[in-house]
């Protein structure tokens, strides 16, 4: 709608857009520059992006609440968006392709919608561990033969790890409403864990060099490392099912450039865009109408764990706090 007054520039389709848009995204320079270029070409709208971690985006959007700088927040696990939604930081928007998104892939109120999905997997060093030996399911990680072979990213600061840990608790919690069993499981995992790495790079490095051989992580990253960066990594989708994170996009409340923002929102989740993201950047689309996806997506069967993300969001802080204070063995990590 052309309700905006003033400075909008006429684009090819005759709609009024602001001439600029600000995107906050953790997707990194490569993706962002590519989409900036394509979007600018098509709409003649100047794209500016800030590239930073999703937690940082949340902090920042929160801190800019009185004076929003960003229009679009592209890329973060749905839990982050849920939090932002609860704090009233987002504007609902229902995209034109709403029909192609399964229910789990968007907010019921359309405060956010999913752009890609991230299954969590067990990852192993393919030089040290053969495909046969590798653990096939979550519970196999507790086997004593993996003692001091597991290196995992320190979970509190990592959305991925929080999701995995919470899922482990949730497996029992959804029936019993009691996290005790899940805590017990995590305790055993802790016993096998050699080290919690502070950031992903350290974890990759250590697993690649064989300081440990097993980890748990997000599947697209593992594929990317293996294919793009020559890491000796393979992954296994746990047989009993795995949590699948949804990464999404949302519009910031009181954004200075709302029209242009909507255009961008649409633009980055067209089927072509989704295909590009899958092929070049190892992102699994949420839309069900994307054709010609690469084989690592089509060939992998993902058994998705059935998760009520609401419960997750409500409890995961407490669970993680409990883990941090009571389960994590403080002495263990200082073993050297």
């Amino acid at each position: 709608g052309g309700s905006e007054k003033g400075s909008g520039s006429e684009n090819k389709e005759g709609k009024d857009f602001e001439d600029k848009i600000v995107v906050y995204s953790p997707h990194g320079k490569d993706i962002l520059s590519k989409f900036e270029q394509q979007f600018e070409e098509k709409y003649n709208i100047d794209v500016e992006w800030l590239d930073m971690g999703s937690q940082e985006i949340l902090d920042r959007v929160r801190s800019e609440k009185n004076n929003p700088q960003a229009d679009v927040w592209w890329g973060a696990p749905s839990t982050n968006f849920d939090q932002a939604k609860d704090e009233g930081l987002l504007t609902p928007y229902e995209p034109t392709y709403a029909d192609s998104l399964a229910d789990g892939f968007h907010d019921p109120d359309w405060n956010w919608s999913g752009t890609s999905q991230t299954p969590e997997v067990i990852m192993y060093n393919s030089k040290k561990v053969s495909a046969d030996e590798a653990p096939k399911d979550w519970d196999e990680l507790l086997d004593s033969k993996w003692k001091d072979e597991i290196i995992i990213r320190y979970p509190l600061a990592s959305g991925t790890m929080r999701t995995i840990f919470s899922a482990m608790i949730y497996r029992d919690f959804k029936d019993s409403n009691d996290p005790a069993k899940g805590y017990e499981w995590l305790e055993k995992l802790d016993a096998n864990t050699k080290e919690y790495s502070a950031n992903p790079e350290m974890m990759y490095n250590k697993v690649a060099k064989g300081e440990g051989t097993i980890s748990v992580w997000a599947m697209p990253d593992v594929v990317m490392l293996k294919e793009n960066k020559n890491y000796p990594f393979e992954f296994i989708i746990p047989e009993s099912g795995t949590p699948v994170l949804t990464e999404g996009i949302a519009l910031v409340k009181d954004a200075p450039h709302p029209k242009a923002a909507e255009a961008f929102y649409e633009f980055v989740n067209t089927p072509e865009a989704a295909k590009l993201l899958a092929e070049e950047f190892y992102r699994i689309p949420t839309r069900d109408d994307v054709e010609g996806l690469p084989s690592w997506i089509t060939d992998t069967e993902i058994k998705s764990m059935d998760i009520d993300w609401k419960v997750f969001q409500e409890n995961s802080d407490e669970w993680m706090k409990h883990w941090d204070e009571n389960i994590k063995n403080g002495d263990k990590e200082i073993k050297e």
Partner: protein
Amino acid sequence: MMKNRDHRLTLWLLIPVLLVLIAYVLYPSLRTFLESMNTKEGVGLGNYEDFFTQESKTNLEALWNSVYISLLSVLASAIIGVPLAFIFNRYDFPGRGFFSTAAIMPIVLPSLVGVMAFMFLYGETGLVPNAIKDLFHLDEVPFKIGGVSGILIVHAYTMYVYFYMTVSAAINKIDPSLEEAAHNLGAGRFSVFWKVTFPLLTPAIVAASLLVFMISMASFSAPFLLAGGFRVLSLQIYFSKINGDMEVAATQSVILSIVSISFLLFMRWYQNRKDYRMASKGIGAHRSEVKNPFMKWMLVATGIIGVLILLLPHFTILLLSLVPDGTWTWQTYPSVFNVENYRLLFEDPNIFKPLKNSLILSFIATAGNLVFGVLTSYLLVKRRFVGKGFVDVLVMIPWALPATVIGMNLIFAFNEPSIFSFGNILVGTFWILPLAYFVRHIPLVVRSTNAALEQLDDSIEEAARSLGAKWFYTFRKVILPIIMPGVLAGTLLAFVESVGEFPTSVLLYTISNRPISIEIMNQLRMFNMGQAAAYGMIQITLIAVVLLISNKVFGVKAEKSLS
């Protein structure tokens, strides 16, 4: 009415200092304090109660760990920094200029990349342990860093520079005839150092100890990267924040500040017991000639080897930057070297923008630090007024609080118009970042200048004033030139830290002023270790050039007041 002009002058100097401190330090910090008073049951001390009575005692454990790691860090940094300063300032040998500048390079290490360089060097799969293992055909790596020892090593490595710089500035100010007198009374080299030189350096050592203690208390990267699970207070704050417990985070921050400030008060008490003004008659500064050639070359060799070790992480970063992505994953040693990473970097037409931003931001902030710091320090050391202790504490708060907390404080304070921002919203503008750098590094300049002023005999200022020089003239022409080395030490540190500053930058930067540290972080987040390292190298080179230039330009001036 003021009693007299001298008091009035003190007041005139005090007003701007207080204004800045209240606006940009106290007011934002109060926000944190208020936050910590929020409990589920309303306003109260509940969070503090929780902190101490918490069942799992993780907070207390973290507090204890932080304190003892910080104390050990102070010790370790002093043990490296003071002797190096001594060697490089008391002995002349070929290449002294180069090595003494190289000795401050650890501070140039970009924080995240730097700690990673350490892992690549000394970790279980690191270059050094494996090289030794292969060289001597051992079955196991002989050593590796991690946990507390790792934290300490990294702390000592990056923080000894505070000792090195402040002590270097102070050591030249010591009247050599004092050491001569001690020798003459029969004290050997060692006991002269311990009983005379070292105590006379107290102001400098106190300054450095404070800086190091507080920065270790608030240190983040090292405990986080090297001992992921090890509890220290700064990490607890970070995790509380991530977990969304802002009140708890605030409470922990306040407690951390209280510990740091107690240390400050203790050090102040310690220093004030004695007098360090070299008030001996006339100018005794005949440069001491005593030199024992064997000792000298021993020390010199130690110094040079020390500097080489100190530069190893930089070489590692250089190495990393020359290894293309994906060729050094499972291999123990890298095998492919080229400039691919640099090529990729320089393909970006905007490559120099963050560099430029960082330089401009740091320059603005540091200029502010210089003016403000020198003024404040002068007030603190040479003027008498009520509430000095309070100002002293205010000055140190930005150092006592973790950088993220400072960043958040500024956000709280300036995301709405206030008188302190002249009615503007600062968050989201260019100016918030230089302001943050400025606030963060106030203590650096103030402390190092304090150390220099503490040694200055008052009658020098009196002489100038009795010759008719107004206060400001005296200050410019007499005091400033004499304390210049100390001021420069602090200013350079502030500049270098600003260029590398990450925690506040990430909270406050905007599109128009994205600094270099953010760029490195983003490369890392995209797993481009090589390009991150290449960027790190650019940062290192940049800072090295700045140091070199300032050394050449100011060095000449500072030299004069050293003789």
